[in-house]
């Protein structure tokens, strides 16, 4: 660990990423490190980038002057047109907040399964009852032609993208036919330079919609 940063920052990032999502947590860490100076941002990338590829990509982009990508509300509304129920797989705080804000009469559920230790009660408390909890045993109760499965993707490269591992437990061939739409929301919008640990690669053809 760099002299500028304390030891144990990996655990801190894991805690944040578990409940905010890799991308939202990365932007938060990058913002706070940069507030102390550019040296700190570079130190953060050096210290954690190899372990957390999303953080590495975000820190690299920020060092080149990139801003937090704006959410494309029009694309979101278009993808969800006609959809009455959405099951979200994975966590990204900024996107979940946007989804809740634009839900209208649409019902939202969050799959409470993840590779990282997550306090789902705390995650859901942020939505004041607007998002229901579902698990692997119950999420298919939300299936239907006007239902969608939505997950977060981390950079699209050619024919493939990366998603949270829990997606593979949800999107089997049998399940895919039960939902009207399978949506991937590219929250990173950047290529990753180091091995995409914590994520799995899936073909983009898995999805019916790919949100920028």
């Amino acid at each position, binding site marked *: 660990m760099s002299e*500028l*940063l*304390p*030891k*144990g*920052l990996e*655990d*801190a990032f894991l*805690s*944040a990423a578990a*409940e*905010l999502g890799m991308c*939202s*947590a990365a932007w*938060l*860490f990058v*913002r*706070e*490190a940069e*507030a*102390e100076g550019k040296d*700190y941002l570079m130190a*953060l990338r050096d210290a954690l980038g190899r372990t957390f590829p999303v953080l590495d990509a975000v820190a690299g982009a920020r060092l080149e002057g990139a801003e937090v990508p704006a959410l494309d509300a029009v694309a979101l509304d278009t993808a969800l047109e006609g959809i009455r129920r959405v099951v979200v797989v994975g966590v990204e*705080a900024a996107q979940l*907040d946007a989804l809740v804000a634009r839900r209208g009469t649409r019902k939202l559920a969050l799959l409470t399964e993840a590779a990282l*230790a997550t*306090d789902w009660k*705390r995650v859901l*408390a*942020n*939505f*004041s009852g607007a998002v229901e909890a579902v698990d692997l045993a119950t999420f298919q109760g939300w299936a239907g032609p006007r239902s969608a499965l939505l997950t977060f993707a981390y950079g699209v490269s050619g024919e493939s993208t990366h998603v949270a591992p829990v997606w593979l437990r949800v999107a089997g061939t049998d399940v895919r036919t039960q939902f009207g739409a399978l949506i991937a929301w590219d929250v990173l919008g950047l290529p990753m330079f180091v091995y995409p640990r914590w994520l799995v690669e899936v073909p983009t053809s898995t999805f019916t919609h790919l949100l920028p």
Partner: protein
Amino acid sequence: MTTVLLTAVLLGSIALQALMPGRRLVIVLTGAGVSCLIGAVTNVAPTSRVLAEVPWDVLVMLVGLGLLTELLAASGMFGKLAVWLTRVSGANHALLVVMFCAVMYLVSGLVNNLTALLLVLPLMLVQFRLLGVTQRYLTWSLGAMLVACNLGGAATPIGDFPAILLLGRGAMDFNDYLTRAAPATAVALAAFLVLVAATARPARDVPRSRVSARITVATMQALHRGLKLDIRALVPGGTALVAMMAAWISLPASTGVRPELICWLGVSAALVGSGRLGERLVRSKVDIEATLFLLALFVMVGTVRATGAFAAMAQDITVLPIPPAAQVVVFLVAAAVLTGLFSAGPSMAALLEVAEVLAARHPPAAIYVGLAMSVCAGSSLFITAATSGPLTQALVERAELRGADGNWLRFGFVDFMPVGALGFGVILCVGIAVTLLQL
């Protein structure tokens, strides 16, 4: 013979439940049943009389205050509180310890500290993971918070079981207890924190980093970004608590409206005011374990009381060849040690019988507040002496925290001992001093 048998059942049950906490409820309930059988067969304590003498008013207050705590917890106020503390302290390690201790002291005086801990502690552990802490810091910060909770519980007549017992049994009235115990516990807390800061210095080996502090504050805020106070729970709960406090302070005993009735009506009003949530809390959140545990203790203590054993024990203390003040000190030290070994509930239920005899010879308020302070000291001696200790231990284990050196952090019996010894010493000394000043 009956006295020996009933005392053996009481002490045996208390000792066994301390040794086997996982089966404590079955142990004390069986002990209570056996006590009733012995009392009935020997006609020393018929079961109907023993049950009639159970202080139901105390149980009503415990259940009622527990439900009120659950209602306030459902409002999300404890989550807001933890985030506020992080922001105000700037995630400064030393300041966090002091602020959490002060807040938990105040909260424990008003609501059930177990529920408050259960809601605040996980947030505190998240902060520890974000900040990066050492074994020393974890031990002393959590240990100090437990001591602060115990002191807060003893500060008011509604904070914890021992004080509720004094209020419920009419040993002291609300104002009398509050005006004597609150300053004493506040002094003890201040002295304890000063000693912790001066001798243990919990934050001395924690790496300090402004980036880490910034990240901690920002992450805590982000984790709770959408958390809203549930007004439907907060308003009826808060209003009822304020109204009950006002009634406890202002209504004289001559009106016949006793503390437990105020509690019953106040909590009922709060539950009615919170709609369906109130019904759900009553059906699912009554602390049956604590209620049955205390009921069993009251039954066992009641049968022993019927034999006159407690009066004899008090008599033994009063004939010790030492000055009367020293006799009181012996009683207070013994009460503290017994509480450390057997926990507050059993100790207080049994020792209050002895205290009542001493209170006939000395100013009652001095004896009762001294006893409450001794029980508080004993509760702080070992991690197992109060229920909040094992709960904290379990939550720390579940959090799987690692120190800056990469080693797993723990909070067990041995780790807590230096904190407990310091807390025990400070609280007991303050308790004895306060008592002697009033004799």
